Every structure is written in C-alpha cells, then in structure tokens.
C-alpha cells in the first residue's frame, strides 16, 4: 500500500478571484494570508493546495459550500485557470499544455459527472451518452454500440430513446455517469454527483457507484459536502475550509485523530465503529488462529455480528486470503461502546 503510482499531483495550487491576482500573489511571496486577501478585496477560492491522488483510489474532497472544493476540482481539470501552482497528470504539467493538448487530454483521459447532471435537453439518452465520442469524431454505429454497452452497465437499458426530462433525478444522473464513462477515462471527476437527489435515491446511487468502481477501478476525485458520504466512499479524504486543505488522510485517520476543531465538528457524531477497519484494530496473530474470518477492509461495525456465535477472536485476512492478524472481542466491544 505504500508505493503507489501518483496519477494526479497538485502542488501549491492557488486560485484567487479578483483583479491582478497573479501580481498580488507574487508580491506576497506566493503565500498571502486570508487577511491579506480580504484587505485587498480578493477572494482566495483555493489556497496553496497540495494533493496526490493515487491510481485506482477514490479521493474525496469534502467541504461545506464556499470552501472552494468546486473551484479546486475545476482547477484540477483546468476548467478554471489556477492563479499559481502545478498540476501534474501522469507527470505532465497540465498548466503548461496548450489548448490542443488539453482538448486531447480531456477527450481521452478525463470524465466528469456534474451536480445538476448537465444533460443536453435536445438529445436522447443514447445521444447524450454517445456525445463525447461524437465530439471525437467516432463513426455513428461504433459510438452508439459503445453507448449502449455503458447504458446497460448503469442499468438504464430500455431508456435509450427517452429524453432527459422524461427521467427521474436518479436516472438522469445515471445518464450523466454513463456519459462520463463513455470515453473510458483514466481520471474520473465527480462533482457532488448525488447532492441534488433525494436521501433514499442518494443512498442507492452511492451503492451503485461503489459497485461500478469495484468493476472499473478508476482513479476518482469525488467532491461532496456530505461528511457521511465521504466516509462511506473514500479511500482518502481531504477536508477543505476557506480554500485550504485542513486535513487529508484515510477516513480512519480523520475520525480517530481530527487535526483541528473544525474537523472534529464533523467527526463528533460519526460512530467510530462504522469507520475503523478491522485492519486498524487487529493485534498480531499469536498462537492458535481462530476459524472465523473477517476481511481486513471490513469495518468494526460489520465485524461485530460475527462475534455473536460466541467467538472471542476473529482471524483478519487480506485480499489474498492470508491471515494478517486477529481481532479481539473486547477491543470490538470497547470501540462500539465509545459510539
């Protein structure tokens, strides 16, 4: 888990809205404070953000409205031109790419899902999903075949000839997801994809998303304002406030050791047992290995029912099925009690 390929690296990225932002930034040695900014009448939407997104992980950027998360994701895809910094996609600095190269990268390597779906109202589901391929100049038969496959993948078969307005919100976002996957992107941006949906549908879509990712194994940057959603889906989370990242780490890191009071506000009501994985609570396997097994990636809350049979210990196994430790009943009970 330690040495992973970094698919997307962002270094010292700034986005300041207002006049002469670049000059202002360099006149403050590239690091103005919030007070400097507001005194100059500028808005620091993204401030000195450093991130590494690894291949195949779900990286969630979480923040409340106004925290700069939407601006950041648009900087990463260069829909918004950052004021300063570097964004490396597979080692290539996107900010140095010319328009033609950028079009090339977006056409073949990136996909994006939008909060309000951004479906084209004059096109059917099939045409919407095939549109990115159409833009690339792919022949009609070929792109429609591909589009049908993905529509099937997201569970919308039979709706190909519907118009977006004839679909429910959840279905519309499935179209949005299918469209973003049509080009088989390496880097998948999801900008609050489920925020506009009802709670029940949101839950369903989160599960659906997890299922898709288990098949597709994309590198994902997922934006949300919902901390529970972040916890549920993330491999790693970055929490943003006032344009800066206040803490980045695995859900467990954040829940168990919130870096600031602000982060603690979010984690306070999250049951730790639902976040902490067996892997983090296990002890080294000594002596007899118990028969009952649990996956290293299962949460404590998911592991707890296995103790009902009366077992005192569970064997913790990794993805290959080899035992890497044991989980003790007392520790589990202890954590559940903490809430």
């Amino acid at each position, binding site marked *: 888990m330690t040495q992973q390929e970094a698919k997307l690296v962002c270094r010292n990225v700034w986005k300041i809205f207002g006049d002469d932002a670049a000059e202002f930034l360099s006149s403050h040695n590239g690091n103005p404070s919030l007070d400097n900014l507001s005194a100059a009448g500028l808005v620091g939407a993204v401030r000195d953000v450093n991130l590494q997104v690894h291949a195949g992980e779900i990286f969630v950027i979480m923040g409340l409205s*106004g925290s700069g998360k939407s601006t950041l994701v648009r900087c990463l895809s260069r829909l918004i031109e950052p004021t300063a910094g570097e964004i490396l996609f597979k080692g290539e600095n996107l900010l140095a790419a010319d328009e033609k190269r950028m079009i090339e990268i977006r056409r073949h390597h*990136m996909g994006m899902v939008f909060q309000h779906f*951004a479906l084209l109202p004059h096109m059917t589901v099939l045409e919407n999903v095939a*549109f990115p391929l159409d833009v690339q100049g792919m022949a009609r038969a070929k792109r429609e075949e591909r589009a049908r496959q993905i529509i099937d993948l997201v569970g919308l078969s039979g709706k190909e000839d519907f118009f977006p307005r004839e679909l429910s919100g959840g279905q519309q976002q499935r179209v949005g997801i299918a469209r973003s996957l049509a080009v088989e992107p390496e880097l998948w941006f999801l900008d609050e994809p489920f925020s506009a949906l009802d709670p029940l549908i949101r839950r369903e879509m989160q599960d659906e998303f997890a299922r898709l990712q288990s098949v597709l194994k994309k590198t994902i940057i997922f934006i949300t304002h919902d901390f529970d959603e972040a916890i549920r889906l993330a491999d790693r989370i970055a929490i943003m406030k006032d344009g800066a990242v206040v803490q980045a780490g695995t859900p467990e890191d954040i829940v168990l050791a919130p870096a600031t009071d602000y982060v603690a506000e979010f984690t306070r009501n999250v049951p730790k047992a639902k976040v902490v994985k067996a892997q983090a609570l296990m002890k080294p396997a000594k002596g007899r290995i118990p028969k009952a097994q649990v996956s290293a990636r299962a949460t404590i809350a998911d592991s707890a029912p296995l103790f009902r049979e009366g077992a005192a210990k569970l064997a913790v196994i990794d993805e290959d099925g080899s035992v890497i430790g044991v989980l003790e009943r007392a520790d589990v009970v202890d954590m559940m009690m903490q809430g």
Partner: protein
Amino acid sequence: MADTHNSAVPVQPSPRVNGVAAWALVLCVFALLWLAGSSVADWAFDYPKAFMIPAKRWIGDGMKWLLNEASFGLFTFLDLTRFIAAVIDIPYRTALSLLSTGFLQGQGSSAIQIVPPLPWIAVIGIVSLIGYHAGGRKLAVLVGACFTFLAVFGQWHSAMVTLASIIVAVPMGVMFGLLLGIMAFRWPAFERAIIPVLDLMQTIPVFAYLVPILFLFGFGPTAAVVATLIYALPPMTRVTILSLRKVPSEIVDLGNMIGCNRRQMTWRVMVPSAKDSLMVGVNQVIMLSLNMVIIASMIGAGGLGFDVLSALRRLNIGAGLEAGLAIVALAIALDRLSQAYANRAAQPHHGEQVKTGFIYRHPYTLAAIVLVLLTMTAGVFLSGVQDYPPDAVVSTGPFWSDLVSWINVNFYDTLEGLKNALLLNAMIPFKRFLLGLPWLGVIGLIAFAGYSLGGLRLAATVGTLAFLIAATGQWEKAMITTYLCGSAVVLASLIGIPIAILVAERDRMWRVVQVIIDTLQTLPSFVYLMPAVMLFRVGDFTAMIAVVAYAVAPAIRYTVLGLQNVDPRLIEAGKTMGCTPWQLLTRIRLKLAMPEIMLGLNQTIMFALSMLVITALVGTRDLGQEVYIALTKADTGRGLVAGLAVAFIGIIADRLISAGARRTRQSLGLA
C-alpha cells in the same frame, strides 16, 4: 464556482437627507432662471445660432462622400451596397414569384408567365400544415382561417407581397442576429462596442434611416428588406446574448470536459441548449419584420402597408381599415405559428419502430408537395383554384366608411367636445409650458436628476445628450415631442395602471386581458392610425390617441407582473396586521411593485416614441414630422439629426428610469 462568490454587495446608503435639500435648491435656481432669466440671459432660452453644431451638413457631406468617393480600391462603397442589394434580390424575387407574380420571362408588360404562382388554396393548405405540425389541429384551423380571411376580403395579392418580404427578411435577421450575439458572447470587447449601437438602432425612428438606405441600396423591395434587417436585428442579438449567458455553467463545463473545440462548443452545445429562449428572439424578429415591412412600403416595399398608406392619403377610411385588418390577420397567424414553435418541445418518439423511407420521415413535406401538384394541375383547368374567384370577394370597405360617417353624423359633437376639452385644458397649456422653459435650465435639471439617481457618469451622459439636442437646433421640436409623448404616457398610465390593479388578482380576467394586449402588441404600429383618424381626423389629439392605444399594453403588462410578483407572505403579513384592502394596495403591493411599474413606464415611453414618429402622417409638428419631411425630401442629414434627437430623448428617459428603478429596488431590499 457558485459557492465561492457570496461576498455580499454592500448596500449604498441612500443620500436622501441631502437629496431633498439639494432638489429644493436646484428647483429654486431653475424657477429663478425661468421667471427672471428671459430679460437677463436670452441665450438660455433660444440656443444661440452662432454656436450651433452643423450636424445636418456634416451628415449630408458624409453621405455624399460615401456615395461618390468612398472606395475600397477595387470597388467603391456604393458598388458594395448595390451588390448586397443584388444578392438579396435573388431570394426576394424567388419568394415573390412563388407567392404572387409567378415566374416570368421577359421584362415589364411584355413578360410572359411561364409558371403561375402557388394557388391560393395551396398556400392556405401549406400554412395549415405548418400550423398542425407546430401546434395541432386548433392552430391549423386558426392559421388557415387567417389566410382564408385574406383571400375572401380581397387582400390576397398585397398580403402575399408582404409575406414574400418577410420570408426573405426573417431568416437573414435570425442568422445575422445569432452570429452577432455569438460574437458578443465570445468577445466581451465586441459586446461593449456593439451594445450602444444596438441601443441606438432600437431607439432611432425607422423613418430616419430609410433615406440613407434608399441612397445606398436603391428604391424598391430590397431596400425595404435591408431596413427590416436593421430594425429586427437588435432584439435577436440581445436575446442571443442573454440566452447563451443563461446556459447553465455546468453545460459549458461539460462541453470543455469532453474536449469540444470552439465550433463544437458553439453549435453542438451552446446554441442547442439555448434553443428555447432563442425561439423567443425568432418570434420577435418575425413580428418586428412585419411591422417594418409595413412601414417600408414608403420606400417601395409594396404590399399591405402600401394599401394602408395610399388609403390614408386619400382619407379612404374603408379601404385603409380593410388593409389594416388584413395586416392584423397576417400578424396573428405569424405570431401564433412562431410562438407554437417556441413552445413546442421535441416530441418523444420512443416505443415506436423507427420507420425508414421518405414518406414516414417527412409526412408533412410530402403532403405539401402533393397539395401543390394537385392544385397546380387543377388550377390549369379551373381558374378559381389558381386565383381566388373575384366574384366571391367580399368588400367591407363601404361598410366601414358608412359606419364612420354614421358615427360622425351622430356623435360629432360629443367627440369634438371631448377632443377640444382635453386639448384646451390639458394639452395646449402643457405644450406652452414646455416651450417656455429655458433649454439651459432643463439640461441642468436633467443632469442633476442623473447625478442624484446614478452619479456623475449618468449625469454626464444624459446632460450631454440633452445638450446635443439643443446644439443641433432641435430643441423646440424636441419639446413638442416631449409634450406629445408625455401626454400620451400619462394617459396610457392613467388607463393602464388601474386596469392592471383590477385584473392582477383576478386570474380569469387577467387571462382575457392578456390575450387582448398580446394581440394589440403584435399589430404593426400603422394599424393604430386608422381608427384614430376615423374618429378625430388629423392633428395632435389624433396622434396622441393612436400613441396611447399603442403604448398602453406595456403599462398594463408590467404593472400586473409587478403586482403578481409581490411576495404573498408579505401580503399575508399585512392582512394579519389588519390592513384594509386599500392599505394593502397602497402600502404593500404597489410599493413593492414599484420597480416593475417603473420598467413598464420605461417601455411605455419607448413604445410611445416609436409610434410618435409614425403619427407624423397625421400632421404633428414634432421631431417625427421633421424626420418624415426629411424622408419625403430625401434629406439624409436632416432626417438623421432629427432621428438622433428622438433616440436621445428615448435614451435619456431609459437611463434615468432604469437608474431610478435600480435605486428603488435597492431601498426596498429586492436587489
């Protein structure tokens, strides 16, 4: 993006305390100048001749230069404009041949018709098919009935000439408007440059630019098409800019994320996404084109407008009214058709098997072709199919003439009494008052109003415009325009606002009124002259009545909109506080609707100004008459200077009222 920009705009404290004192002071100075100034400073009342800006001569010389000397090297400017005219002439000739004259061989009276025009039955059939396609059976019947009306009442030929101009002008207007709008959307610098030009194009009276167009494009229908383009272009451009800007930012992001290049972004993402609101612009282009084609009959467009004009000149009320009604029928048909297309969403077609073959894919085109072939063949044998049988034409002209003479015989005294009472007691004193004011003082007042409503910049803008009116020698005529426009706007508001208050809360009544004012607004301004002339003959009063009839619609519409938009919770709050209905109306509803009502006033003034120029035909003495005289004398300089003065009045009113509405909205906490 959306969540990064919520820094609140600080509300400016309104300088009201100083404002009242300052206004009192300014008014005192003004009164002093007015009452005592004439003996001391005569020049403040009559603009000194020596300092007059010879704008007429400049424009005249500029026009001469354009016509005689301007050249691009290989060809002259005139060559270019004449070439454009020749290009426009091709589709126009085709449309005219198809609808009216038939395809001819040879010149003049010796021409032989090779192919006859479309039979009247075929045209009615085709427009009904279009109506069915756009809005179902009801619309098909309505549109068919409107066109049958044209045939039955003997207006077919003229109406088809008018229609041919529209068919040519509308696609060009839509296309150029769309292109200009896209350019303005893409390059903000271009937008900044084009917006003042659009303002001017929309406020300058149409008569004013007919003369230069005549010189450049020659007398005839093509010049009329060019004039129509200039007239109909600005709203399409504006609607395009607005609707492209309304496309959600996520859709733009989507286009970028999937790697659209510029062309794909514009034509595959932006324009289709904005289609619904763009269709509103298309509807406007159609209606404005119709209005302009009627006016352009003065420079040889022919058609229905020419019939109205010649009837007006002969004071043949019946004939004029008949042509006017034909315009109404055409206007309603075109308006309903284009609105239906604007409202029509693409039909869902899933569940059906996709059928191939021409018949299944183009049932309407096929039906139209069959219809044309059938009627053309039948027309060879039966002349009644080709042309509407002349014996069956119903003429209502005599009826209307009789009706008018009946009214005049029986109600002459009443009408005359009404007219004289208003003229003597209100209009003429108002006119004398305005004419007696010192120009210097009025300009000062306007500038001060600008300053107190919107700051130095606004003061400079409106002050300069007002000064230019005086400096080009248009002051007296401008005051008469102000007097006519002012009287009409006051009267229109006095009629419109109470009606609006009455219907705003009564849904069913409002729907009826809405249909009426919608229809009134689709009518070309020419039509309004007929009944006014019928009842009151010529003169200022007639002009004012026609202007009021034309300008009352926006006064009603905006007031109703404003009243209906008042937050219902505030009305509930007022009720729980125990407000009487009168208090509710005056203290809450009208107060909160004020910004909208002011915008309505703005529109009323714009409508009034544009109509005022047309009323020059019934003998006013204002700037409109000046423009009209210049048109008949083909004097470019004179027409444009007077036209610009009208435009300046409009722009001054618009800027001041908009600033006032903005301020009111801020102080009400609505902005």
